[in-house]
């Protein structure tokens, strides 16, 4: 009878038999393995614990302030009366502008790079440049937005702006943009553009070559192939990436801060030139104050921000699910 068979007769598992017959060095290596597994579990559960403590703290400090009144009042010097109406609407406006600008440009760039670009020095330079842009700190994009959008490189004086339309109406335009929602949205566009481009590229790359070959073989032009075949097939992944990018945009405070938006705003945006602030900036403002009342406001603001992010991700899941079913 072999040793394995003996072991089986004694009701031991193969691993135990192996361990029992192993030389001393192997016993030591097994101990190392188990020790490392313990380290793994400790480090990984650390991440879970941190997330739990973070969410618990924010909920504990903020949930009492989370009322309809909080969502429907403007900032105030008295913590008891303050709310997030202005930053909430500001975030929505800025995010909408950002999505309207970043999606076409980002997906367009990805289509060019994946479907049309020839292998050339310029193409590889564009690709390298996009990966470098992803590493630029967001506060530096704020400086770009401040100079390019808010001040139009100083070509038009802010004291003597060119205006079109009625300042109270929806279609009001002013050059330079100043620190209005349009400047904010376009600045965030620059921040998230690399994310949109890279995720759209991955989405397009995941479409099988055979689909394109089939369309081209039927006589479709490259653009028809892209527009009718490749793009529809990659939309679920593109949308997922886009929502990830929008989540990033809605959480960004630094670039908006550099634009120099006013700290106290008691109105919601009415057009593209309206003054605004955003949720993360309002949270920053409240969290930086020493009084406990403002810390509760900051926590409640964080809860609102996290709820918006959660809604975004829920939408992403629904879109992915629907489109996967349809295709």
């Amino acid at each position: 009878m072999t040793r394995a068979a003996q072991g089986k007769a004694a009701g031991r598992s193969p691993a135990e038999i192996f361990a029992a017959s192993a030389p001393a060095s192997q016993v030591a290596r097994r101990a190392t393995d188990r020790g490392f597994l313990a380290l793994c579990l400790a480090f990984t559960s650390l991440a879970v614990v941190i997330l739990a403590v973070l969410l618990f703290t924010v909920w504990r400090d903020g949930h009492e302030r989370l009322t309809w009144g909080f969502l429907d009042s403007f900032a105030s010097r008295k913590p008891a009366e303050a709310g997030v109406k202005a930053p909430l609407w500001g975030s929505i406006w800025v995010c909408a502008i950002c999505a309207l600008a970043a999606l076409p440009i980002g997906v367009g760039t990805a289509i060019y790079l994946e479907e049309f670009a020839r292998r050339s020095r310029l193409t590889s330079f564009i690709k390298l440049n996009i990966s470098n842009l992803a590493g630029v700190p967001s506060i530096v994009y704020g400086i770009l937005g401040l100079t390019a959008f808010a001040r139009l490189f100083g070509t038009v004086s802010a004291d003597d702006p060119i205006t079109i339309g009625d300042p109270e109406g929806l279609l009001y335009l002013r050059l330079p943009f100043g620190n209005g929602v349009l400047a904010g949205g376009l600045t965030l566009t620059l921040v998230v553009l690399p994310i949109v481009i890279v995720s759209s590229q991955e989405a397009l790359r995941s479409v099988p070559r055979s689909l394109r070959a089939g369309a081209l073989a039927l006589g479709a032009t490259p653009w028809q192939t892209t527009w009718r075949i490749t793009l529809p097939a990659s939309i679920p992944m593109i949308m997922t990436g886009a929502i990830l990018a929008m989540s990033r945009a809605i959480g960004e405070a630094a670039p908006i801060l550099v634009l120099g938006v006013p700290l106290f705003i008691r109105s919601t945006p009415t057009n593209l030139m309206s003054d605004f602030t955003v949720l993360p900036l309002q949270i920053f403002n409240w969290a930086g104050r020493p009084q406990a009342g403002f810390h509760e406001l900051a926590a409640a603001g964080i809860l609102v921000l996290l709820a918006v992010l959660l809604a975004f991700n829920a939408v992403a899941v629904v879109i992915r699910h629907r489109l996967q079913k349809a295709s």
Partner: protein
Amino acid sequence: MIRGALFGCALLSIASTFTILAILLWQSATFFSMPEVSLADFLTGTTWSPLLGAEKQFGIWPLVAGTMLVTAIAAAFALPVGLVAAVYLSEYAPRRVRTALKPVLEVLAGIPTVVYGFFALTVITPFLHDRISEGFGTYNALGAGIAVGIMILPIVASLSEDALRAVPRSLRDAAYAMGSTRFDVSTKVVVPAALSGIMASWLLAITRAIGETMIVALAAGNLARMTVDPRAEVQTMTAYMVQIFLGDAPATGIEYRSSFAVATVLFAITLGLTVVGNLVLRAFREEYD
């Protein structure tokens, strides 16, 4: 026509890079042409006092030192923890645990940084003050550094995990067939094979830590000085920029202009690290197909 429009979109990304460069260089040139500052003092000076006193001094090193201290603390926390978590997820974890843990990392990665700043102020720093040492004030480098570390942890973990999972199964099988334990396979086969990806994830995480703004503006403080004491209040490059852009310094004043010179240094450091990261990925990549 459509091709041209798409090409235009692609060119926009190049345009934004060069516009950033042009703005930073032009504004820095204006700053250095002011009589009170010199480029040599800026690059070698160890006192940064642009707002206080009659004698303004612009030596960048205290801000760089503050940034490095916070980044080093964040890296010391996040790089090892992130790598071990990645090894666990890719080599050890049962599928059920993996599907439960991935969303935790995704949520951590999606949390806005200002929330981590609030966390540093209300949880980490009070904990350090009450449990570790009375020397930790409201603003300190360690609390901000840990918060930045938490922020970059999911970047390290998920990018390193991608790199580890890209290592072909056959390499692992061969090592297991030789009687290796999972620890042996992980440390002697999989991690070395994925080293370029791991290094790239580390460099990206460090770049993020250096450029992180809201956490340090809330929790690290506004005192520019050269120190390695983690209990000390320090000022990072980004925190200085926040201080200036939040303040009411006039747009033509020397303080306001100095923030553009600081931004140029920040941009140069992060761009340098990103370029190095790309080179590492290309130079040390192991090809298996």
